[in-house]
């Protein structure tokens, strides 16, 4: 997993944790990322955090993208980041999209979330935001 970008493909896991009812947004974002040349592993609805960790490990992704609209983004991210550390996945970037109130963004970033794309973010901003993670 020591790759950075160098013309290689960015692999992204798109997952929806918890009990959100639909995944239209996540699917559309997945399409936009595909069109930007990324390989998107789409794992769909109702993912437990254990499943997300397991998938990210097996699929060797660079980014985990969570779509959260349930309002539970703070506890979910907090827990996932701890689990990622335990599983040795700290080098994976965690990004979050969905219904995220702006006042929560600083808190998420402090936890270790690499980028937040709240509702209303354009595809371009998401794609650039993700690619920028590898420019450092």
């Amino acid at each position: 997993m020591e790759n950075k970008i160098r013309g290689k493909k960015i692999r992204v896991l798109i997952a929806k944790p918890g009990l959100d009812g639909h995944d239209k947004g996540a699917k559309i974002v997945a399409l936009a990322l595909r069109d930007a040349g990324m390989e998107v592993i789409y794992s769909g609805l109702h993912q437990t955090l254990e499943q997300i960790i397991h998938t990210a490990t097996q699929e060797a992704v660079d980014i985990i993208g969570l779509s959260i609209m349930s309002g539970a983004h703070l506890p979910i991210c907090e827990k996932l980041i701890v689990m990622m550390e335990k599983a040795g996945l700290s080098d994976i970037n965690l990004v979050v999209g969905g219904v995220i109130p702006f006042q929560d963004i600083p808190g998420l970033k402090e936890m270790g979330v690499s980028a937040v794309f709240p509702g209303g973010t354009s595809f371009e901003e998401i794609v650039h935001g993700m690619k920028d993670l590898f420019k450092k």
Partner: protein
Amino acid sequence: MIRLIEENDPKAFHLLQSLYPHFGKAFIIGITGSPGVGKSTIINKLIREFRKSDFSVAVIAVDPTSPYSGGAILGDRLRMQDHATDEKVFIRSMASRGRAGGVSRAAKDAVIVLDAMGYDIIIIETVGAGQSEFEVSNIAHSTGIVSIPGTCDGIQAVKAGILETGDIFIVNKSDKDGADVTMHQLTMIIDLANGNNWKPCVLKTIAHDGTGIEELAAVFLSHWKFMEKNNLLEAKKREHKINYFTSLLKDLTLEKLLLFMENSSEYREVLNKVLSQEIDPIHAAEQVVKEIISPFVYEEQTHEKKPNGLHELRVKK
């Protein structure tokens, strides 16, 4: 590790080198068929059956890479969620990365890795395949071809290609109309095929509720036993190794040769003639091959020296 292979990383080839001696224990199953026939769903249920018998299972699921953006959406895993946290099940999605035949080369190398890691059964799911997507049978020991009712009339069935490579035929969604017709058609061609080895069989399944999957798993396992007993497995492994080696050789030679050709003045001269339509591409290609390549081949075969400017230049290199 698989990631490194996908990226053609030189490190991967060192690792592959050390793993290769451990390769060759797993039973490799290929699952192919048109898009939407239920390959992933069948595999999901198959994993459960194999797990019941305590086999460890690895799955490589290939989905297409977009020819436009180079990106891909890998969604096979979505249908294999039943095993998301089982330690003895490893599922890896791969993008085809422009490789025709439904299986990327990286997938072949990934099979070596997973085999060496000790998985008992490795299942390869191809991209939704057309009529000639049979490359998977160059890796798999047993190939399952999935179809659905209403897709197979008499003439489709006797066409060459994908149907010839199947060991096990699966008519999925068999609760839909026409399942028996499809079954019948498939059975008919199988009966026509000469059966001195394994006789392919046709099975009905309804993957989403699991009907027929237990039988399917049993058939795959009995195919495994059958091949082992009759020394067919060894023969097949040998054949696969040869195929893989020669295809790599072909790729590499072609790459080097094309590069070499593109830098030669003969090539450019002929290309210009093709562009100006002075000479047709077929003759042009023949001419290039004759002028550039045949000196080596010729010499190899006859040990006869042919004075040829370009040849000499090449030899000095």
